[in-house]
C-alpha cells in the first residue's frame, strides 16, 4: 500500500496539484448548486442524441427498471463494467432473481463475484484476496489447473469472459462524468472491459447517481487529471470512453438514480460529500480502513467517504456507528482530489448523532459521568479505587462476562491489580 502511495504522489508532482484540487472543488460546488438545471440539460441533450433516460427514486426502483430493460430486449445475460452504483442497486441479486445472468467483467469484480463476496475497495474490489486465494478460487469454480501467477490468472479470466461479451443481450457500465452541455458521458477504466461491455451487446445501459453531472466538456480536463492520479497513480487511465449516443442499430439508456443522494443534498452539513468522484484515495490513506479493511464497514462504500454517505443515503442506523470509526487524523482530507473536508463532515455527523441520542453511547456517557464524580472528590475516589480493585480481581476469575463490558473482556486479558495502591504504599513508608 505504501509503495503505491509513493507512486501516486510522484504522479501528482507534474501538475499544479493544489490548483487543480481547488478548481475541481469549485466546479463540483457549482454543478451541485445547479443540479436540477444540469440534470435537465443533460437529459434533453442525451435524448437528442438518441438515448433514453430513466429516473429512479430508489435503488430498488432503479434495479426494477434495469430488469425491465433486459426483459424488453430479451436479454438472458448482462455483461457489467465496474460500477459501485450497481452494488447499491444489488443489481446482481435482482438480475439473478429475474432469471437473468449478471457477469462481472472487471477482473477484481469477477473474482469477488466468483467468491460470492462483496468488493472491499471502490477501485480495487479484490484487494482483500491474495494471489493464492484467487488461484484456489479459479481451480474450484472454473476448473483451471492451480496457479498463483497473477499474469496467468488474469489471462484465464480474459479467456473465460471473452465469449460472454459476445453472447450478452445487455451491457452495463457506470458513469464517471455526465456532461450537461453535450448530453454525453465519460467512463474511465484500464482493462478494456468497460469498452467491450458498452460496445459488444446491442443495448448499453449506463447507471449513474444524480451527482455525476458536470457542466461542460472543458471541466473534464480538470477531473480526469485528478481522478487517475488519485485512484491508481496513473496520469490517465488506459481507456477514457466518451460515449456520444447510440450509433445505428444500437440502444442506449441512462438510469439516473437518487437512492438517498437528495438526503445528503438537503443537509448543507453533508452536501459536500456529493462532490466525491469515487477515486478511493481516502481509503488508501485512512489508518482505520488500512487496519480494518473494507468489509468491516458493512456498507457499499467503505472508508471515510463511506462513513459520511452511508448514514444519510442508505442506513440511518449506521449514523451511530460509522462516523465514529475514524481517528479524525485528517489524512483523507489532505488526500481528497476534490478537497472534501471529510473529518469535518464526520464530526458534524457525530454531533448530530449524539444530540439525536442515536449514538448508542449511553454506557460511555454513564462511565464518563462516574469518572467525573470520582475525580472531583477524595472520598469518592478512594471508594471507587477500592471497588474497582475488587471488581477487577473478581472479573479476572469469573467465567461470567455479561453485557457490553463482557463482550469487550472476552477478547482481552485484564491486567492484575497492583498488590497495593499508591496511597497504601505512601502511608506505610518508613
Amino acid at each position, binding site marked *: 500500500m505504501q509503495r503505491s502511495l509513493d507512486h501516486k504522489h510522484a504522479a501528482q508532482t507534474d501538475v499544479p496539484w493544489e490548483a487543480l484540487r481547488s478548481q475541481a472543488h469549485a466546479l463540483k460546488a457549482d454543478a451541485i448548486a445547479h443540479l436540477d438545471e444540469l440534470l435537465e440539460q443533460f437529459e434533453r441533450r442525451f435524448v437528442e442524441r438518441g438515448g433514453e433516460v430513466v429516473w429512479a427514486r430508489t435503488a430498488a426502483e432503479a434495479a426494477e427498471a434495469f430488469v425491465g430493460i433486459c426483459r424488453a430486449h430479451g436479454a438472458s445475460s448482462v455483461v457489467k463494467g465496474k460500477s459501485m452504483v450497481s452494488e447499491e442497486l444489488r443489481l446482481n441479486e435482482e438480475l439473478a432473481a429475474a432469471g437473468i445472468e449478471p457477469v462481472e467483467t472487471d477482473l477484481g469484480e469477477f473474482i469477488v463475484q466468483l467468491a460470492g463476496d462483496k468488493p472491499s475497495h471502490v477501485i480495487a474490489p479484490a484487494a482483500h484476496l491474495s494471489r493464492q486465494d484467487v488461484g484456489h478460487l479459479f481451480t474450484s469454480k472454473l476448473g483451471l489447473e492451480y496457479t498463483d501467477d497473477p*499474469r496467468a490468472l488474469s489471462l484465464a479470466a480474459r479467456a473465460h469472459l471473452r465469449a460472454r461479451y459476445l453472447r450478452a443481450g445487455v451491457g452495463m457500465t457506470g458513469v464517471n462524468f455526465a456532461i450537461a452541455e453535450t448530453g454525453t458521458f465519460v467512463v474511465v477504466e484500464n482493462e478494456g472491459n468497460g469498452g467491450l461491455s458498452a460496445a459488444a451487446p446491442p443495448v448499453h445501459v449506463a447507471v449513474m447517481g444524480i451527482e455525476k453531472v458536470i457542466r461542460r466538456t*472543458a471541466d473534464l480536463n480538470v477531473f480526469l487529471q485528478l481522478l487517475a492520479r488519485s485512484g491508481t497513480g*496513473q496520469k490517465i487511465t488506459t481507456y477514457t470512453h466518451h460515449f456520444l449516443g447510440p450509433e445505428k442499430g444500437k440502444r442506449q439508456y441512462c438510469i439516473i438514480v437518487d437512492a438517498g443522494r437528495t438526503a445528503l443534498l438537503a443537509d448543507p452539513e453533508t452536501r459536500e460529500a456529493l462532490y466525491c468522484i469515487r477515486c478511493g484515495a481516502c481509503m488508501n490513506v485512512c489508518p482505520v480502513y488500512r487496519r480494518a479493511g473494507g468489509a468491516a464497514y458493512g456498507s457499499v462504500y467503505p472508508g471515510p467517504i463511506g462513513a459520511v454517505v452511508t448514514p444519510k443515503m442508505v442506513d440511518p442506523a449506521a449514523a451511530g456507528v460509522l462516523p465514529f470509526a475514524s481517528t479524525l487524523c485528517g489524512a483523507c482530507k489532505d488526500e481528497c482530489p476534490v478537497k472534501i473536508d471529510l473529518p469535518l463532515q464526520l464530526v458534524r455527523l457525530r454531533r448530530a448523532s449524539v444530540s439525536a441520542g442515536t449514538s448508542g453511547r449511553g454506557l460511555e456517557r454513564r462511565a464518563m459521568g462516574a469518572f467525573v464524580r470520582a475525580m472531583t472528590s477524595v472520598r469518592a475516589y478512594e471508594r471507587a479505587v477500592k471497588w474497582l480493585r475488587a471488581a477487577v480481581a473478581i472479573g479476572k476469575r469469573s467465567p461470567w462476562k455479561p453485557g457490553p463490558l463482557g463482550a469487550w473482556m472476552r477478547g482481552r486479558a485484564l491486567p492484575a491489580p497492583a498488590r497495593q495502591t499508591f496511597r497504601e504504599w505512601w502511608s506505610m513508608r518508613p
Partner: protein
Amino acid sequence: MVVDAAVNNDARSEIMSRIRAALRVPLKLDFDDVSAAESERAETVAATDPEALSARFVRELGLVGGDAVVVGERGVGALAKSVADHITRLGYQVIAVQCDEFASQAASQIPADKMIETSGASAEFLERADCAIIAAESLIADTGSAVVRVSNYQDRLLPYLPPACIIVGRSSQLVPSLNEGALGAGDLERGERVIVTGPSRTADIEKTVVLGAHGPGSLTVFVVSD
C-alpha cells in the same frame, strides 16, 4: 419507451422537487476556491515545438507499456510501408482495419489475403483478427495517448477485441495536453470517442500489473510527418 412513461415522469418530478427543495438552503461557498477556479486553467505542457512534442509522446507512451514508431519519411506511403513491415515482422495473420480513409491508406501495403472485411461483420467474426488498425483523431504528448473516434458497431470493437492494436496518426495531430478540442463532442456525432493510453492493463491481483487484461496486450502508435 421500455419503461412505463407515467412511472418515469413521477420519479423524475419527485427527484427534481427533492433537489429544488434541498437547494433552497444554499451552501456558503469558499471564496478562495471559487476564485482559484476562475483563474487560468492549468496547462501542463508549455512546449509546442513539434520535435519536443513528438519526443514527449514517444517517452510517455513507452512508460505505460506502449510502443511509438515515428516514421522516418514523410507521407502516407512511407507510413503504409512501415505498418506492413511491422506486421510481417511480428507475424500477424488476420488484420481488421477501421472503416476510415486514413486507416485504409495506412493498411494499403499489407497483403490482401491477410485482411478481413469488417463492414457488417459479427463480433465472432472479428474475434478472428490478431491485429487491428485504427486511425487517430489526435495525439496527446503529455500522456502518450491517442484519441480515436469509432462510430459503428465493428469499429467500436476494434480497439479491444484483437490481441494487438495499431493506431496510426500524423505529427500535425500532436497536441501538448488533454484539452477540450481533443475530448469534445460535436452535435451530430454518435458512437464513442476513446482516449487510448497504452495497452489494456489490470492490477487487480495483489497489485501486480498485467498487460492485455481484456483488450490488447500490445499497442503500437505510428506517427508520420505530413
